[in-house]
């Protein structure tokens, strides 16, 4: 579809819709991993388009680490209700029982238990054979190598050296019992495309993306929002109100805010164009080492 008739976003939209229809047709029990962020919002909007006038023929699942921003949870429940979709919320029961949290257990152990393990448990529990994720190839180096249909073994592992060849739009969806496929319909979108699409399509997103006065403490140079009373403060540390917004959303203790006054989508895009830091640096989990994401993904992280 490189004909001049369509805009870049229209082309991306058609490609994503085609991918979603393929999954709905070929899998027995697909699910959409809904992470509440802007990419998920776009993905969900595309799903509404792909199957119209039908509803998307699969549920949404949210892996709740119990440390998401409160506004995210509100937005999540409201969205599922507004669109009339089934929403499954899953939390790792052992993790919850042991109160695994980013403060006492460190971000990497916490992420492993409450996100990676939780996701695997949920997929196994419900027997999903395909799961949509909102990852984009422009996000990070190992993502750039991932197929649109990404095969996972029975233990949800990704073998980057042995990916199925993926030619044309012919996706091999064959799997054995217990195996699954992660599907990334936004593979070819860039961050700018996402924002632009949200703007033109008027897609609702969590208000945390827009600048507002929020209660902030600084930890290791990162601006952390004090979203509830569970946030431990060092003696003498007092949260201060600052005009900030978030470029990505995750667990509030692990998600850095940026100083910003951008309160509209246009202002966000304007700021983004001047920004010189790439998107994921707002998430603390990635700064460990450069191969960190590949490692996580091999283990089954989305």
């Amino acid at each position: 579809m490189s004909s001049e008739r369509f805009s870049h976003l229209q082309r991306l939209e058609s490609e994503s819709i085609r991918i979603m229809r393929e999954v709905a047709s070929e899998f027995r029990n697909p699910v959409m991993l809904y992470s509440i962020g802007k990419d998920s919002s776009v993905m969900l909007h595309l799903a509404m388009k792909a199957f119209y006038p039908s509803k998307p023929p699969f549920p949404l699942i949210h892996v709740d680490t119990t440390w998401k921003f409160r506004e995210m949870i509100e937005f999540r429940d409201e969205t599922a209700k507004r669109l009339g979709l089934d929403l499954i919320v899953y939390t790792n029961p052992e993790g919850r029982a042991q109160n695994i949290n980013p403060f006492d257990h460190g971000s990497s152990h916490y992420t492993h238990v409450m996100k990676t393990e939780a996701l695997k448990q949920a997929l196994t529990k419900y027997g999903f054979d395909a799961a949509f994720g909102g990852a984009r190839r422009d996000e990070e180096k190992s993502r750039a190598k991932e197929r649109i249909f990404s095969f996972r073994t029975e233990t949800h592992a990704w073998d980057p050296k042995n990916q199925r060849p993926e030619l044309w739009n012919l996706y091999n969806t064959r799997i054995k019992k217990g195996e699954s496929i992660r599907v990334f319909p936004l593979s070819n979108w860039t961050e700018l495309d996402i924002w632009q699409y949200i703007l033109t399509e008027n897609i609702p997103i969590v208000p945390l993306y827009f600048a507002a006065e929020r209660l902030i403490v600084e930890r290791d140079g990162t601006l952390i929002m004090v979203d509830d009373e569970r946030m431990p403060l060092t003696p003498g540390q007092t949260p201060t109100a600052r005009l900030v917004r978030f470029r990505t959303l995750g667990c509030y203790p692990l998600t850095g805010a940026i100083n910003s006054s951008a309160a509209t989508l246009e202002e966000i895009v304007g700021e983004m164009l001047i920004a010189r830091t790439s998107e994921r640096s707002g998430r603390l989990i990635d700064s460990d080492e450069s191969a960190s994401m590949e490692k996580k993904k091999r283990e089954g992280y989305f």
Partner: protein
Amino acid sequence: MKPNVVHNVDAVADYLAAQDSKGLLRFITCGSVDDGKSTLIGRLLFDSKLIFEDQLAALTRDSRKHGTVGDDIDFALLVDGLESEREQGITIDVAYRFFTTEARKFIVADTPGHEQYTRNMATGASNAELAVILVDARHGILPQTRRHSFIVSLVGIKHVVLAVNKIDLVDYSREAFDRIVSDYRDFAATLNFETLQPIPISARYGDNVMERSSATAWYTGPTLKEHLETVNVVDDHEARPFRLVVQWVNRPNLDFRGFSGTVATGTIKPGDNIVVAKSGQKSKIKAIVTYDGKLPAAFAGQAITLQLEDEIDISRGDVLAKPEERPEVADQFAAQLLWMQSGQALLPGRPYLFKCGAKIVTATVTELKYKVDINSFEHLAAKTVELNEVAVVNLALSEPIAFDSYEANHETGAFILIDRQSNHTVAAGMIQFALRRASNIHLQALDVGKNARAALNHQKPAILWFTGLSGAGKSTIANLVERKLHLAGHHTYLLDGDNVRHGLNRDLGFTDADRVENIRRVAETAKLFVDAGVIVLVSFISPFRAERRLARDLVEETEFVEIFVDTPLALAESRDPKGLYKKARSGEIKNFTGIDSPYELPETPELTLSTGDHTAEELADQVASYLRERGYIAS
């Protein structure tokens, strides 16, 4: 991108509008290992300001750890995303990168240079409109350059840039450049490229990549950037005949039935007549439905849902066309194949899953016409096709499908083959032409049918398929079973491996390919006996699941009884009635099942006979009682 001027909302809106109206070029970079593909892409991203500072920091760190260029930045590290790739300094898989210039957006697939990863290169090439083929100015055209050029041409890429890289290392020599260009033109003459633009570059230092180099004053052509921004790759999809592959039947409620899919080529509007290519049923377009409202027309590339005037039978995989421009419908055609599976060659006669558009059927290669030598492009006779080899074959499908030649339509002319056991994508294929029209090969309907013949025999015909190792006891048991059936007045026939190999299959040896053909012929013969109302006993090692499956698929599900004669290798070897194991062990016989050729255990046989604990007589009785219980013979 000039970031600092973006201050107000209008400027942002203008900027976005400009972005959205830009054309997109998808291209791949390919060439031999170390020719500089990754460096070139790193350079393109760097010079179009797409490397953010934190990535740059990680890059300089990584550079020190693995880098090959001393203390400056190794751009290749930016794109080699996998840890094993960074360690080994090679690219294993395709990486997709995005960048934008004032004129165009680009998606570039950085494809691996190593021969063993050619299939990943093909993955990148299948969705690209242009290929940048890198050549190291010091080494000129290498086998991998030829291989990649061939595959680029095979998947139908029409535009090529010959990037003669590392021109700095040959002192920016015009002679070196001219020599390579002329060599390349010679061998690429048959590859059907519409444009071929040679450019002398240094990926490492940036010469003629984004900026014109003063060191190559003799070169007057475009820089790489200029060429990528201006080369005309506009496709003519809209001008081609209308095709839509139905992906999903859209049925939200009883009042709405729509067919969702993407317009592959052509245009469509309400009121147009359409035909379901395979069934020939016709209707008219009632509406083109989308979430954003009904459309007055839809064009190639659009994902839509069609509502028709009539209730006709349409399901996933059907191809919709206009009655005056229909695709072909056939179950046999010639195709080019790129084999992509390591460790497992293409076996003519073996059934594979075949996916074309949204249709999945079974396919077998009925004839391997020839392989193409990647270096000389010569045609070579072949019995199998191995990893990364290209062949021209005839395929037969389990049922007719609607399709076009790949040249006429990539979406309805491309297919993949999937191995039924492992589920691996084993081949990519491009349809050339139909061998015979399905409409001419309606099976002859005979007056005396299978059931009539069987009734006369007072039995239900079936294939009793004995499989197991050599010396397992297949023939002994099959013989006993036949004797019992015969005594009870049943019509039987026994096809024995050794006997058949003396006649019908005299021309076949014991390679994988020949074993497959051996079984195929026996299965077809057995099928004729079933047709004649006979209970046919087949006693064959038949070591591969896929072929037993093939035999099973030839007849009705209840007409196939797979009997696994289960004898452990050690036991069979100790019996060794024909002294064959001994010869196999000493190397006198090659490809002997169980020794140096695999036996794939049956997964769900109807019967398993364990010869370790029972006599042949007892086992034959087991088979007979199975046949009685299931009503194959009267009790």
